[in-house]
């Protein structure tokens, strides 16, 4: 007799869907080899075939229900609904949906809205094919003083929420808030404004093995909510972009070194390949690649290692994603809709080895853990996306053989009346190997209160 037979409550609970996360979820890779869509190294990874791709989608006025929504796409080629939208979950209203991140157990996914400052927590474990909105945080501004919850980065038992702006002037001075997994506010750390710091923020990424966290810098609400054409013509506004990156002592959450990195460094990625000790970012306005590597004395140094396209044309490098071996880097350039693959075998001397036009515009890129499948979406910000016919909005899935991207499927998010396709996350399930030993979601979120 099993426990499920003895306890009806448990039996009901374990009927729920389980995730096929990494083999042996008990042991989350001390030397993680990971960039499964740039997840936190504290989060279990989907190392096999992903079953679903979640797309955090911006609502568009006059299109469908006009609301921001979480779109679930079947990504398993063995499924009858492969390449189809199998679920849509609107959150009500348009708040500038942007990025998402799993909790450290991959049971929940947080998704943020840069304008409304709402944070949505979805249960993606009970039935991964039908995520359920279980909590909405409306206190981000009141609790943290920050605006624009951008990056959701799991640490043990908590979530770092890296913001873009602040409530006082909606400029670029910002910081990072920490919440418990249950959605209770813990603390705020401001970006440094002394010793060379400019106070701007954007992304955060941690290398636990090095006790290091790299943060980057973008721009405040005043700019990211402005029409891009208007913004480019506004000289004062164009001065309000971050020009620094910061290496932190993750444990103490104190800056250890501040770098001059002109041109708004965006996504921060670590190579977790064994023996590697470097991170990488790209700058949106200056089209440069920067690598951060420890020198012989263990001090972090910044290296400008490459130029993406023709900076004079402002190709606008946006999302980047390292492959799991750390040997390759996908870089999307928004303005020409092009995906670029860089050989990072020698991270200090990388080279562009492949390009492919994905669409009129392209923003996010998410390779599978084995690197064989690569997914692209289009939206950057609602007021920065292309206008008219150039405003492609899609999810495209490709197979990658190391030489060429071959289209597997695509979904037109306008034709489907969904909206602007932005951030992607993968999920998997395997009912045959795992069942959750969990109480109801309501109980799970009825967490201990803050002191």
């Amino acid at each position, binding site marked *: 007799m*099993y*426990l*499920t037979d003895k*306890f009806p*409550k*448990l039996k009901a609970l*374990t009927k729920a869907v*389980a995730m096929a996360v990494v083999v*042996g*979820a*008990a*042991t*989350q*890779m*001390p*030397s*993680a080899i990971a960039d499964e869509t740039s997840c936190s*190294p*504290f989060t*279990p990874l989907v190392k096999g075939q992903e079953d679903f791709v979640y797309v955090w989608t911006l609502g568009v006025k006059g299109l469908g229900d006009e609301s921001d929504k979480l779109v679930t796409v079947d990504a398993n080629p063995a499924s009858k609904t492969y390449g189809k939208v199998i679920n849509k979950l609107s959150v009500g209203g348009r708040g500038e949906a942007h990025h998402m991140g799993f909790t*450290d*157990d991959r*049971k929940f996914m947080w998704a943020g809205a840069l304008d409304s400052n709402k944070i949505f927590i979805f249960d993606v474990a009970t039935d991964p094919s039908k995520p359920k909105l279980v909590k909405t945080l409306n206190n981000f501004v009141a609790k943290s003083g920050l605006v624009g919850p951008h990056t959701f980065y799991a640490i*043990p*038992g*908590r979530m770092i929420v890296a913001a873009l702006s602040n409530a006082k002037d909606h400029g670029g001075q910002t910081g990072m808030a*920490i919440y*418990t*997994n*249950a959605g*209770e506010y*813990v*603390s705020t750390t401001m970006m440094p404004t002394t010793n060379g710091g400019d106070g701007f923020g954007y992304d955060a990424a941690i290398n*636990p*093995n*090095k*006790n290091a966290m790299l943060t980057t810098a973008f721009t405040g609400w005043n700019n990211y909510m402005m029409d891009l054409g208007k913004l480019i013509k506004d000289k004062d506004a164009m001065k309000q972009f971050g020009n620094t990156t910061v290496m932190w*002592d993750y*444990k*103490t*959450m*104190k800056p250890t070194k501040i770098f001059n990195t002109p041109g708004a460094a965006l996504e921060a990625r670590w190579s977790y390949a064994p023996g590697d*000790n470097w991170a990488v970012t790209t700058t949106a306005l200056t089209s440069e690649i920067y690598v951060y590597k420890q020198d012989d004395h*263990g001090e972090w140094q910044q290296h400008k290692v490459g130029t993406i396209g023709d900076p004079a044309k402002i190709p606008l490098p946006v999302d980047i994603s390292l492959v799991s071996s750390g040997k390759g880097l996908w870089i999307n350039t928004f303005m020409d809709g092009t995906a670029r693959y860089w050989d990072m075998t020698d991270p200090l001397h990388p080279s562009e080895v492949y390009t492919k036009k994905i669409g009129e515009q392209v923003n996010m890129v998410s390779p599978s853990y084995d690197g064989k499948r690569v997914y692209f979406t289009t939206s950057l910000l609602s007021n920065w996306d292309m206008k008219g016919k150039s405003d492609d909005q899609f999810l495209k899935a490709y197979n990658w053989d190391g030489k060429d991207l071959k289209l597997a499927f695509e979904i037109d998010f306008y034709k489907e009346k969904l909206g602007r396709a932005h951030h992607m996350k993968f999920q998997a399930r395997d009912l*045959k*190997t*795992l*069942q*959750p*030993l*969990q*109480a109801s979601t309501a*109980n*799970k979120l*009825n*967490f*201990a*209160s*803050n*002191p």
Partner: protein
Amino acid sequence: MIQNLQFKYLVAGLIFIASTLLGYIALSQYIPSSGKVDAFSAFSSSRPIEKEFNKELQARIAAQKLAAAGTYELQKIFNAPDGDVLDSKGNAVKLSQYTSGKYTLLTFFYDMCADAKGCPYAFTTMHTVKNYLEKTPALSKQVRFVNISFDPERDTPLMMAGLEKRANRNNKDFSIDWRYLTTKNIDVLIPLIDGYGQNVDIALDKDSGKRTMEYPHVLKIYLIDPKGVIREIYSTTYLSPEMLLNDIETLMIETEKGV
């Protein structure tokens, strides 16, 4: 009737002896030699996985530039949840009596966990911390370890008693108070693990669909201050004896300062 009772007692006795023996065997391979202050002494096994893990651990510790104790603050994350547990004598007690008054390291585990990077890793790490602290009775008396089982069906109070005795075998006069707790049943356990935010799954056999004896989970160790507030959460990816000692010392300094 009497024969039936005798038989039941005999079976119960055999189960107790077997459970204790199994617990001893399961844990003894991870216990460092008595009193030795060596973060790596527990990884002397010749088993390839552990040897490899030892290398990773050494590399990680060498790479981590830990700030000096007391020079940083640990977040007040949330109050340690309370709940009903069974101690190793089978007494029904409140968990809160083991999560306040001392600096507490608490982790969930199950005795059958065989993953070198899971429960055994937590046990080994905590044992190394214990050995270090017990060199100084003034420190060891301020610290408590708590293990709570995921598996109340198999990890009975009798089983916990065996593990507890084994864990506290050294330095009797100034041993760290190391408690092994279990719960009456899964229904009592679930609110506890949910309160702590500790996930756990039940692994099923791929072919039969039947439950195995594995409980995959993300390893977490909680550092709780004497006021019962969780101040740090560690996972396999971010855990070393040095880090635990550093953080415990940081909390002690905080108390000294009266923060």
